[in-house]
């Protein structure tokens, strides 16, 4: 046992490195344009390429994707999709931005592979060679692996939302014409390709944390690290590089998921935004309806996921009081409640008292949803820790 982890992992303590990159991954506010432009030129030189003739600044990953589609001659596909009317003005704005740069007429091919992926692979191979397969796995688990779940989820959400904004496949009803479906599917393909050409900047923090801990940044990766610290997503082409702004707003819960009740959880300067409740995507106009909720309105909601958000927002306690509910069971671990919903499984929850009092002397209660077949409060609380009821006996709780 004492042997485990005893071998030196990497020259720098991962605990120090990870805090920095955790911060980079969630940084909001205007890009540091001067630093970014210098870093991107250095990244091209490090890759053995000529510096890009034009650096084009855009306001969001959505604008970045539109510009990438324009530069690769694929933007015409968007014309065939359902959201075209709302996409057209955005596309025109981005086209105007590109038209300010002569090089945009002949951007050359995408160079993500040369600028980002190859130096990445070299650093990984070197680190792998130095630490061995187990050492690399351990280094990753202590650094990149810590940041990966939330960074990866966020980048995936952005990618999905940009794509949907442009092709509208999710808006196609069951009765959509087959021809529209085909045209949409073709657009989905080119949009995905445009998004795959992006370098994720701050959302590459997990990789950069691992390379930083391995002291690999100095060996050619520093320009990429500097870009991650100073911009959002970016798209490198031979003669043109597209750099985009970071979010203006980023709101997350303690588990790192997008979360905000009174506005967008993620927003960019051009208005591109995502709305979410504890990570669950919700429509932008849905949040505005939460203020005027009533138990009747909650019961009438047909979408089970939105109904769950409504219930949480309204407050289980208030809902139960309004509906004069009786607890199912009560013991020293807490109280078990059930809410019956039409055409859905019941919501069964334990109400647990936080054992450490608040500064004002009151004790905060919190609610945890448990499986619907739960019969006692102890069984419910024990389930939240993966234990059977008869094994849950905390000696001390705070």
């Amino acid at each position, binding site marked *: *046992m004492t042997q*485990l982890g005893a071998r030196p992992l990497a020259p720098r303590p991962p605990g120090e490195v990870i805090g920095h990159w955790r911060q980079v991954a969630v940084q909001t506010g205007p890009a540091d344009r001067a630093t970014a432009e210098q870093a991107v030129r250095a990244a091209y030189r490090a890759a053995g390429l000529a510096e890009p003739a034009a650096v084009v600044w855009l306001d969001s990953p959505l604008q970045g994707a539109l510009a990438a589609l324009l530069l690769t001659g694929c933007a015409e596909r968007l014309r065939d999709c359902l959201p075209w009317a709302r996409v057209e003005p955005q596309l025109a704005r981005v086209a105007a931005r590109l038209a300010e740069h002569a090089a945009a007429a002949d951007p050359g091919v995408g160079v993500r592979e040369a600028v980002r992926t190859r130096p990445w692979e070299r650093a990984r191979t070197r680190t792998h060679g130095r630490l061995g397969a187990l050492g690399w796995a351990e280094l990753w688990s202590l650094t990149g692996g810590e940041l990966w*779940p939330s960074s990866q989820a966020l980048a995936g959400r952005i990618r999905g939302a940009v794509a949907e904004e442009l092709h509208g496949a999710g808006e196609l009803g069951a009765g959509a014409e087959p021809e529209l479906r085909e045209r949409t599917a073709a657009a989905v393909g080119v949009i995905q390709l445009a998004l795959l050409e992006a370098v994720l900047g701050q959302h590459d923090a997990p990789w950069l944390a691992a390379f930083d801990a391995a002291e690999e940044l100095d060996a050619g990766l520093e320009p990429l690290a500097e870009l991650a610290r100073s911009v959002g997503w970016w798209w490198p082409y031979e003669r043109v590089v597209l750099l985009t702004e970071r979010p203006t707003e980023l709101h997350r819960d303690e588990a790192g998921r997008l979360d905000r009740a009174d506005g967008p959880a993620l927003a960019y300067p051009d208005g591109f935004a995502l709305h979410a409740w504890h990570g669950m995507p919700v429509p932008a106009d849905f949040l505005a309806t939460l203020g005027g909720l009533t138990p009747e309105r909650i019961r009438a909601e047909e979408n089970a996921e939105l109904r*769950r958000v409504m219930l949480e927002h309204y407050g289980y306690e208030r809902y139960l009081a309004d509906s004069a509910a009786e607890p199912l069971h009560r013991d020293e671990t807490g109280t078990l409640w059930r809410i019956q919903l039409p055409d859905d499984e019941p919501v069964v929850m334990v109400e647990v008292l936080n*054992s450490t009092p608040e500064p004002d002397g009151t004790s905060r209660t919190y609610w945890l*949803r448990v499986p619907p077949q739960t019969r006692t409060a102890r069984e419910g609380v024990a389930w939240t820790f993966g*234990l059977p009821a008869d094994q849950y006996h905390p000696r001390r709780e*705070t």
Partner: protein
Amino acid sequence: MYRQGDVLIVPVPKEAAPASDHGLTRRPRDPRGRLVLALGEVTGHAHAVVGPGELLREPGPFATAWLHLPEGGRVVHEEHAAIPLPKGWYRVVRQREYLPGAVRVVSD
């Protein structure tokens, strides 16, 4: 066993602790020299152990962690009272919540 907010700390016999070939990693101490059992992403508040020992776990929000305190220690958190822990081995469990078709980690 001990509960501090959304973390349960369960004493286990030494024989139940993982053998060294289980592929777990020893977690580094944070810059304040503590072993972090769970970290709040936004507030940075942490369930953390002060004192000598080691923490072994896989990455991931639901991964079980193993805590070894050869001389005992204390688990602290910004919003919860500290709990003294006798020396020994512990299994550390994060609280989860039921969602139809899934579970999600609790964030207190």
